[in-house]
């Protein structure tokens, strides 16, 4: 009994400092990352990737995928902020990990890098399916491309891909010049799913088939529908990267030169290292993470927020949006943030102008409709966190003494009444006193 209570006290003492090292609202970059490998030699064969992560301040915890002491959370608290699963052939995780606990991990807002390779077990396929990514059903199929392969490969399975998504948030500002080398399985995305996105697509001449056997029927996955690397940003802003090739992250492909078949350009170094580094910056919230302050609105000329507006009032609206730079909150600069004045449908939709210091503002006239409106800012730019802000405000009609005193269109009628009165007055005098 004494031993048990003493060990519980020791464990809780251990946990207290761990709590201060997780990611928080003020510091959204992940800190502690669990790396699951199915073979410890991956630590050395992918050492460049892991060392770049460590140099950026991440706390990497390497474990074998079937380690029986694996746990993502203890006593209800998550132990890690990010998860890297480089275990494409694992059928079952050890410890308390399974595809449901990984789905809960992403549901709690934490990030995931998942990679399959030339063989993807059902477990990995299941986790990818949860995130909206469909690996090719044929377990022996690989991506083959007879016109976009690297010339150093005789098999046409080492693809030199350069069809990258155009997003500064996901891939960084510097353009990746050299093609990215890829050898692995194909996956496809459901086109109606608007949370997943193809980061590296295959060229139109690619297809997914078994390279060592003759094709008996046309392949199911072909062309640009094949995605080589995809990302998903969940509604709670958790980010997931799913790659069809583990070799894409390996030191050998990081260091090798690349020349695409049919192209005269020969690159000393492939684009793999830059691609993997920029993608890891995005997925662990070092880039593209936005935070918004509260919505502020008031009448023109006043500073306090009124409790109710009147129709046809002039009002000013502003909101503060900051972007996380990896170390600090910087002002967010963009020209496409919009605000809606919404009641069942937007009556007013205006693009906010920015003062480049993080404040976005605009002014407009309240529409000629009364009711309960909302100021809504719904911002979903590619690669950035989605902002969904709203504030409710009622709008009342005119009071009885706020209408205009004399209606300009009715002046002729007023004139007619007065001339009738004058005419009657003159007529009565003339009629009574004529001779």
């Amino acid at each position: 009994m004494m031993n048990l209570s003493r060990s519980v006290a020791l464990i809780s003492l251990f946990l207290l400092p761990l709590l201060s090292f997780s990611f928080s609202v003020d510091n959204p970059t992940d800190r502690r990352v669990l790396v699951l490998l199915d073979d410890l030699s991956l630590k050395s064969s992918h050492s460049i990737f892991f060392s770049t992560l460590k140099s950026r301040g991440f706390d990497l915890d390497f474990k074998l995928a079937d380690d029986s002491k694996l746990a993502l959370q203890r006593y209800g608290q998550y132990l890690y902020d990010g998860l890297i699963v480089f275990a494409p052939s694992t059928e079952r995780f050890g410890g308390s990990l399974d595809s449901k606990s990984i789905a809960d991990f992403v549901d709690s807002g934490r990030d995931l890098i998942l990679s399959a390779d030339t063989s993807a077990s059902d477990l990995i396929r299941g986790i990818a399916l949860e995130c909206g990514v469909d690996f090719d059903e044929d377990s022996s199929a690989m991506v083959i491309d007879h016109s976009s392969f690297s010339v150093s490969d005789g098999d046409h399975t080492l693809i030199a891909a350069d069809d990258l998504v155009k997003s500064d948030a996901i891939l960084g500002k510097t353009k990746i010049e050299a093609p990215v080398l890829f050898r692995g399985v194909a996956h496809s995305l459901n086109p109606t799913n608007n949370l997943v996105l193809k980061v590296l697509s295959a060229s139109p001449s690619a297809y997914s088939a078994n390279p060592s056997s003759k094709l008996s029927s046309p392949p199911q996955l072909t062309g640009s529908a094949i995605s080589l690397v995809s990302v998903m940003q969940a509604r709670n802003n958790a980010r997931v990267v799913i790659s069809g090739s583990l070799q894409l992250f390996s030191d050998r492909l990081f260091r090798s030169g690349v020349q695409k078949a049919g192209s005269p350009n020969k690159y000393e170094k492939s684009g793999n290292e830059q691609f993997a580094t920029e993608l890891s910056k995005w997925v662990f919230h070092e880039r593209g993470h936005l935070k918004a302050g509260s919505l502020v609105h008031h009448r023109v000329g006043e500073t306090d927020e009124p409790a109710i507006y009147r129709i046809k009032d002039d009002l000013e609206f502003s909101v503060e949006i900051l972007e996380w730079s990896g170390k600090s909150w910087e002002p967010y600069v963009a020209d496409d943030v919009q605000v809606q004045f919404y009641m069942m449908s937007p009556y007013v939709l205006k693009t906010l102008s920015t003062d480049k210091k993080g404040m976005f503002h605009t002014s407009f006239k309240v529409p000629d409709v009364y009711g309960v409106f909302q100021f809504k800012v719904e911002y979903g730019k590619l690669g950035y966190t989605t902002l969904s802000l709203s504030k409710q405000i009622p709008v009342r009609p005119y009071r009885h003494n706020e209408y205009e005193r004399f209606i300009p269109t009715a002046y002729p009628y007023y004139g007619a009444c007065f001339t009738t009165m004058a005419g009657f007055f003159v007529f009565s005098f003339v009629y009574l006193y004529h001779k």
Partner: protein
Amino acid sequence: MVKSTSKDAQDLFRSLHSAYSATPTNLKIIDLYVVFAVFTALIQVAYMALVGSFPFNSFLSGVLSCVGTAVLAVCLRIQVNKENKEFKHKTVVTNLRGIVAMFVIAV
């Protein structure tokens, strides 16, 4: 036929004109007032046809006040007309009654 109808119209107009000149002056004054009131009402109707009936209340008040005073003036004319056999009043009383009625109601 054309010639005869135009000659008939001219004859008609001339006979009306000469008959009308024979009416007493006070009746002519009332007629002038009625024409003025109806004319004002017609102007307002034309204006409403132009700009639409937005302040409909104002339109109604303008037109009805003009039409009302015209109707009351016609009543006065009927009562004052000496050739009207049904009404046999003394001149002063007639004048006062008619005018008081118009004053109270027309406003």
